[in-house]
């Protein structure tokens, strides 16, 4: 009896054995140590807004340089502060900034222009190592080709067709743009605080859950996944049922004093059961408090910082 039940649980573990090729924006890179790790690829929207920011920065740089130029000319009372010279200098500096700003910034500041840093994007090579100067300049030069026929539609088309969402410049210079930000709140503490732990007395068979099942539950409540409550309940139902059977869990019936509450909660019953399981067997809240030194939150705080700009 017990073996068949555990078999049921095995079946419910998603994708056991199959390679984890999900349809999402993650790209796997293998390290020389033989470990796979993943990058999240930045989509066109984020990259477009980084580009817009960078356009603004370019204009500001040229304006700043020009202002400095004019001020210096006046300060030293140079005779040649004619409008011709200034506009010639403006064209020259616009040329330099327009063609080289992106490449130099990415090449020298570890794959980030100002706009990319603001949006927490980074250019890396497709093997995950930092981009070199030549490739950075090249991928920015090819933006001209990606722009065609109008407003980057060519580049967008190429991005849609490639797995790493690379535009032509990325393809030619072996780079990709990754997203480094994490907007996820850590594990739904507010969700867990609403439920109470499972009691030993509630479970007739056993009081334990396999680690893999726990991780499935954790994924179900991953804040990065937007699932409606109703849909989550639908997904939770088979797993909840199997798990209840496995543990011999029996929910207490309606409280005779306040039966209304029982039936109110009945709607998301499986979700609630899985949350209780998670609260009981997964890392406890106290654990999370005292592991702040090594907890994911701490990692995120560091991660948002730029990597190599101290040099």
């Amino acid at each position, binding site marked *: 009896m017990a073996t068949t039940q555990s078999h049921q649980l095995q079946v419910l573990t998603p994708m*056991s054995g199959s390679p984890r090729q999900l349809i999402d924006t993650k790209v796997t*890179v293998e*390290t020389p*140590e033989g*470990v*796979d*790790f*993943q*990058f999240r690829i930045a989509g066109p929207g984020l990259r477009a807004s980084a580009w817009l920011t960078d356009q603004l920065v370019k204009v500001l740089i040229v304006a700043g340089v020009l202002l400095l130029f004019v001020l210096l000319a006046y300060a030293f009372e140079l005779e040649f502060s*004619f409008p*011709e*010279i200034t506009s*010639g*200098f*403006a*064209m*020259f500096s*616009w*040329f330099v900034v327009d*063609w080289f700003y992106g490449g*130099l910034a990415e*090449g020298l500041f570890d794959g980030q222009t100002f706009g990319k840093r603001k949006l927490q994007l980074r250019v890396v*090579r497709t093997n*995950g*190592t*930092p981009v*070199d*100067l*030549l*490739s950075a*300049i*090249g991928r920015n*030069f*090819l933006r*001209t*080709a*990606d722009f*065609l026929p109008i407003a980057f539609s060519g580049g967008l088309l190429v991005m849609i067709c490639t797995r790493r969402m690379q535009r032509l410049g990325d*393809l*030619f*210079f072996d780079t990709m743009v990754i997203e480094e930000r*994490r907007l996820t709140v850590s594990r739904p503490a507010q969700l867990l605080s609403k439920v109470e732990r499972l009691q030993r007395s509630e479970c007739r068979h056993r009081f334990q859950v396999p*680690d*893999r099942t*726990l*991780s*499935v539950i*954790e994924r179900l409540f*991953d804040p990065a996944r937007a699932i409606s409550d109703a849909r989550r309940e639908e997904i939770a139902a088979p797993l909840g049922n199997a798990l209840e059977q496995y543990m011999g869990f029996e929910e207490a019936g309606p409280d005779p004093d306040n039966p209304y509450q029982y039936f109110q909660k009945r709607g998301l019953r499986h979700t609630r059961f899985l949350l209780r399981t998670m609260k009981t067997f997964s*890392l406890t809240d106290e654990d999370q408090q005292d*592991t702040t030194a*090594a907890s*994911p939150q*701490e*990692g*995120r705080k560091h*991660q948002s910082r730029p*990597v*190599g700009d*101290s040099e």
Partner: protein
Amino acid sequence: MNRERYIRLRRDDWAQYEKLLHRLQYTREGQWLAKDVSLMARLYRSICFDLSLVQSREWGSQLEDYLNQLVARGHNFLYRSPRGSVLPSLSFLTTGFPRLLRQHFYALMLSTLLFAGPLLACTFLAAVFPEQTAYLVDQEVLQQSIEMFSPSEYRRDGQNFFSERSYMFGFYVNNNTGIAFRAFSLGALAGLGTAYVLVSNGISIGLTQGSMLAVGGQTRNNFFSFVITHGALELTAIVIAGAAGFVLAQGIVVPGNRSRLDALQYSGRQALRIALGAGAMLLAAAFVEAYFSPSQIPPAAKYLTGAVTWALVLSWLAFSGRGGSSDES
């Protein structure tokens, strides 16, 4: 071992790794301590192991994400390419660049053909049938450039010369180098963009040149003494940038023995180096065009320097760096 016990056992290492990584990232390489470096290597490897363990046991996406992020940062930190220099090395400009260019002889020939062909044809056309040019170019623009070189206009007073020429310097850099870089990068569209840039510029230069021939007299003399010197650098640089575009296209159209993606990346780096060399040439050309070409020295002197410059540029491209070993990018 169960999940919580594992985390409890390992989290000190993780915290230490994070602190160490952060510290090393924000100090210069020269100041790293030997013990920090070896500790870093040890911790990185152990965290790689942690990640693969957590992956294989499916111990939750959060933990996996966290370790994944640790490994990604460490990987980015440990495996890097040598820092490139901002300035092109002198040896690249003197020998490496002509050598690289000669390696891509066919691209260079194609580019020369597409630029010089329309140029010569249109020169002939405009010189022999001046009235037919109306179909090809805006007459007003053409008239303007002819007037610019007419004896009455061409005289320049010395006082405004410097500032006016500085304006033109900015204009030449922006316009000409921009054309060259565009010719290069549009090569990514299987070479079609490059061909368009080359042919259209060949046509417009040819028509101007032919019209000058047709007008004749002092105007013609002014024009050709003006263009001959910087033309040596400018026209060759445009052709070279076109060649860079075709090298780029080579990755798409004829990948050869490589997979297409490999071919793209190989041709990308080669082509970019060629294009940057062409950019440097155009910078020099803009300087000559702005300050030397319109100067008041007699035309004969300009023709002489022009001839010398052409000879120098062509022999630099044809002979410099021969016999040495070719350097790979």
